[in-house]
Structure formats: structure tokens, C-alpha cells
């Protein structure tokens, strides 16, 4: 899962042990990045 730290704006990879915390600056607010998958939408 890729996130972005809301304070230092660096990309963060989370694993199941580290908890929710930026490893570079220690900030606890992380923003989830949009998935790189192609999203298919039909027009309604």
C-alpha cells in the first residue's frame, strides 16, 4: 500500500509491523495515493 506523508510529502510504504507513522519525520497523518490501476467507468 502506498501512502504520502501529509507533512513531509514523501512516499511511504506501510507494512503490518510499523504502525501508522511516517518513517522519515514521524508524522502520523498519511494520505492514500490513487491506485495505479486503470479504472473503467461507463457513462451514465
Amino acid at each position: 500500500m502506498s501512502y504520502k506523508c501529509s507533512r513531509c510529502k514523501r512516499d511511504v510504504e506501510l507494512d503490518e509491523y510499523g504502525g501508522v507513522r511516517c518513517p522519515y519525520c514521524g508524522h502520523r497523518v498519511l494520505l492514500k495515493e490513487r491506485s495505479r490501476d486503470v479504472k473503467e467507468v461507463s457513462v451514465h
Partner: protein
Amino acid sequence: MAPAYDVEFVEREERKARFLVRGVTPAFANGIRRAMVADVPTMAIDEVRFIENSSVMFDEQIALRMGLIPLTTPPEGEFVEGDTVTLAIDVEGPGTAYSGDFVSSDELVKPADLNVPIIDLKDGQRLEAEADAAMDRGKSHARHQGGVAVGYRHLQRVEVVGDRDQFEDEEPHIVRGVIEDDGELVPTSEFDHDLTVRYPGKEVRIEDVPNAFVFHVETDGSFSVEELVTRAIDSLEQRARELEDAVQL
């Protein structure tokens, strides 16, 4: 007994026209109008694959905007319902993504207007997507509707019956559409839709001319007015033929 029709253009442009048809029944006139609005198929985007969308709007909202962009529709016979054309777009902010930024895989199907804004992109925002356009009828969704502002009015005959009373107040006499004056067709816009401008001090009588309808047809750019009208007629004719064949068996 083949009916005798007479068609006469009052205004004629690529995407907008006004024409008079004499000899049609109201039922037939309305059938043509309805066919133009709902039964003539046009191309429109109905599936979008988003590769990147970092704009402020959701994918679904942008997909709807893309769907509503008029696309040119290829000549009859080139395409059948079910065929698709892919259009790609890749725009990076700052700037606005326009319909003209679409690159089509087929020269025959491309945005009819190049200046339809899709979304405003700020610095660093990007829109990259691939869209599939398909052929369908206006009946299924407004994005497939080729005729916009399609309607008709009776042709109105105006006759001068005498002079207006000397002391009568001059009140505007508003008429809209096209009038027939001694065989001459005059759009009411020429005299500000006011009969007292054209016939000052006269008393006039106006009446609907039976079975004479003035059609006003505007297309969204998918095709010309002539194409739209002939395709609407074709669609009615094809159904009549289908019914005839089915009943014969």
C-alpha cells in the same frame, strides 16, 4: 396514390435550418420530428478508462462530461450499431482540457466542436484517459441525440382585410414562426414578430395553413441538417418495410 409533398427552405445552414413542408398530416410531421430526436443514431463516448486523473473531479463526473461531447457520426453504412472508436486524451495542468484535445483512432469520428471545456487543471494535475465511442439512439440516452431544438409550427397565412379603426389604439400583434403573405414566405423575425410593424394601420386576419408545417431543425454537429432529416425519414421507412414484410408472411 403517392402523396404530393413540397419542401421549401426558408433558412439553410450546416447545423441549423428552417424549412416548409406542404401536404403532410400532423401525424406524419410529428413522426418525423420524433424520429429526428430519438431514433437517429449518433456516436458518443459511453465508456472511459482512466489512466490518471488527479483533477478535482471524480472519474464518473468527467466521464459524464466526455459522454456529452458531440462527435461526428460517419456516413450511413460505414458503421453498424455495436462498433466502437477509441479516443485518447492526455492533458497536464495548468490549463484546461478541451474536447479538441481528444485524439481519435478514426478520422470519421472526432469531436464536432473543439472548444468544449472538460475540466480546468491546476499546476501538477493531469488527466489521461481512453474513451470508447459507440453508436446508439437518442432514445437510450441524451448523449446519442443528434437533433436538438427540433420542432415545427403551422405556416400562418396573413391577409389584410382592411384599415384599422382610426381611433383604435395600436397594440402589438405578436406572431412567431413563418408567415405566408401572398405566396411569399416571411420569417416573423424580419418584422420583430409584430404584425403591426409590417402592416401599420391595417387590420389583418391570420389563419393556419392546413397541412403546411415549418420545421425548425438544429443538430449538435454530429451531421448536417440534411443528413438528420433523411436519416429520420429512413428510420421510419425501414420500420414500415419491416412491418410490411412481417405481415406478408
